[in-house]
């Protein structure tokens, strides 16, 4: 598409929907006056940020690494830059439907083909901190969603839903929380994910933990229900989120755009939320 065409399309859209001009102007004013605040939901990309632990006979996700190319020195006198390397699923990251076998045949299921319209949207935050404090293996069920809706109204279609557990405040060994029988961390149960996808038509589901599933989800039915159900239905995942306690239960806007990686199954990204 040429620049001229893009301008024409934008002009047409504004003519058809004159109210959007005012909405965006209001947004711009809110942002510049800081009445609309932006919250960073992202962890720093650090070499020692935990990544998912799989049995050693499986392939492993590479952690974040950084090597100096030059630092104002003989390798480049006036400039400083790095080469970085990492797995698609390292740090705060996005899961595209192709990540899971259930989503492998869907159209537009990769980071370079998914519809960008879905990458900015309203967000509901379900507070499960008390339950997660009490039980490392807490599974959020449909009853918890019902309780949330009773208080805050029905989750609108095409929303992001984030599960707040306080897990992002954990550091080091406590984050993955490995024991001899594997990781222990909270997540949704299969029925809850199915409800959110089938009854509430969500865009995607996000967590503070290392995956969208519980630490013990390999033992669930189906195994890894959040991955299986979300991606099988073309929905997205966000994990390793932070600062969810700064978001209102409803009314915020989430911005979560993965890198446009060719046939990418996911991507590290900066996740932002606009809050009133």
């Amino acid at each position, binding site marked *: 598409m040429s620049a001229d065409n893009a301008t024409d399309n934008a002009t047409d859209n504004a003519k058809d929907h004159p109210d959007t001009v005012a909405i965006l102007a209001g947004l711009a004013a809110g942002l510049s006056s800081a009445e609309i605040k932006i919250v960073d939901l992202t962890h720093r990309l650090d070499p*020692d940020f935990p990544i998912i632990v799989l049995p050693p006979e499986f392939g492993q996700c590479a952690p974040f690494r950084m090597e100096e190319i030059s630092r104002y020195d003989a390798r480049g006198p006036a400039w400083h830059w790095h080469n970085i390397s990492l797995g698609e699923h390292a740090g705060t990251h996005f899961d595209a439907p192709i990540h899971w076998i259930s989503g492998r045949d869907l159209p537009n299921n990769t980071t370079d083909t998914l519809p960008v319209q879905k990458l900015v949207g309203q967000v509901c935050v379900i507070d499960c901190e008390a339950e997660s404090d009490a039980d490392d293996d807490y599974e959020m069920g449909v009853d918890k969603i019902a309780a949330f809706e009773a208080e805050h109204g029905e989750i609108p279609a095409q929303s992001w839903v984030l599960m707040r557990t306080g897990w992002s405040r954990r550091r*080091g060994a406590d984050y993955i929380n490995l024991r001899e029988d594997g990781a222990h961390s909270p997540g949704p149960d299969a029925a809850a994910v199915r409800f959110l996808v089938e009854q509430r038509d969500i865009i995607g589901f996000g967590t503070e933990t290392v995956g969208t599933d519980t630490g013990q989800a390999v033992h669930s039915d189906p195994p890894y229900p959040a991955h299986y159900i979300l991606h099988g239905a073309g929905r997205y995942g966000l994990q390793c989120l932070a600062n969810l306690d700064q978001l209102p239960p409803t009314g915020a806007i989430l911005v979560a755009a993965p890198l446009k990686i060719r046939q990418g199954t996911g991507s590290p990204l900066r996740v932002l939320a606009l809050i009133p």
Partner: protein
Amino acid sequence: MTTSLPPLPEPVRKDPQKKTPSALIPPSARSRLGMRLSAEAARGRFRLPHCNACNQPVWPPREACPACLSSLQWRDADATGTLIAETTLETSPELYFRERTPWRVGTVDLAGGVPVMAHLHAQCRIGDTVTLRLFLDKADRAVFMAFSDLDSPDLREDIQLRELTNDPRHRRVLITDARTPAGVALARAMTKAGAKRIFAGIGDAWKRDAAIEALEGMETVSTVPLDLTDTRSVEELCGEIGGKVDILVHNAEQVRPGGVMAGRGIADAKQLHEKLVFGFMRLAESFGPVMRSRGADGVNAATAWVNLLSVYAHANWPAYGQHSAAHAATLSLAQCLRGEMQGSGVRVMNAFAGPLEQDWHDQVLPPKVTADRLAREIVGALQGGQQDVYIGDVARDVAERFEDDAKLLEMELAGDGQ
């Protein structure tokens, strides 16, 4: 009856107002024939040229037997002789020895009637029946040393022997990837050998396991964060303890089966290379220069850099082909490091082993090397000042075949051999 020796004093803390001494090395010029002796000493062997006709050892080495002009062959020699003369150097035009006088040397009459100049262990007296050993000096050149009693409990209290070896006693050791079975066994063996302090490098500290707990339970051990795949982590640790590492042990055990076509793919190979090969480079870039500068830092000097390598670094074992390749690359870098460390007094030692007694070799038939044996023999090789040590039957067998005919070994391994 040998005289007892007073214990070597524990190194004192350095006077921060004094300049760190520059590294000095003993005279290093040798002919190619003379270098052959160093190559034998490097592997802990006592071999001398022998006449193929009259069977007598010949020293110094020559092109032909001085008695009958027959050809010579290097082979294991009888190391027993008699100390017939001794002297104590009180001064020397050589800078290295000027710093170290008094220094005892003597002449040993080898059993075959061959006089050999040797460094003398403090317990040797004229007329003693002595055993000769070959060591590499600080210039990595072979020298003879004579002992009257190799079983003496005071053997290692000798300052001249300490100068020729890399004994962990009183020294500070960094073990990388220490949460592996080899790492834990090394920490134990170094402690037993009298190491003063052991820094146990731990990557992914957020994964707790029994090995970390075992290391934390040892009084001499301090666990330190170290991820060989992360440049910054290596730099940060070097910033903290670089000046205190006398012996560095590069242990990056990550055994995975598989070759090139039927392997586990690039991603897996990359992780192995990141840790073993690039991990070595990261250590060399950070710790290398510091150790090099401390090679002659008085009694508290950097002394050795040890690499744990697969014997299949010499020739690829296709069943573990990627693993062999990474070790071959590391061996090549170790040879490079050895060159760069020349003149510093820091020895680069390669410890080669065959399959280890561990989970990823569970489909390999014995004999396999246990972690304890690996650690014990590495400590022994440091105490013996060796450059190369082959641990276990498989490693020794592969090394012999490699030395005999590298091409034949390659062909055997490409078949069904091990």
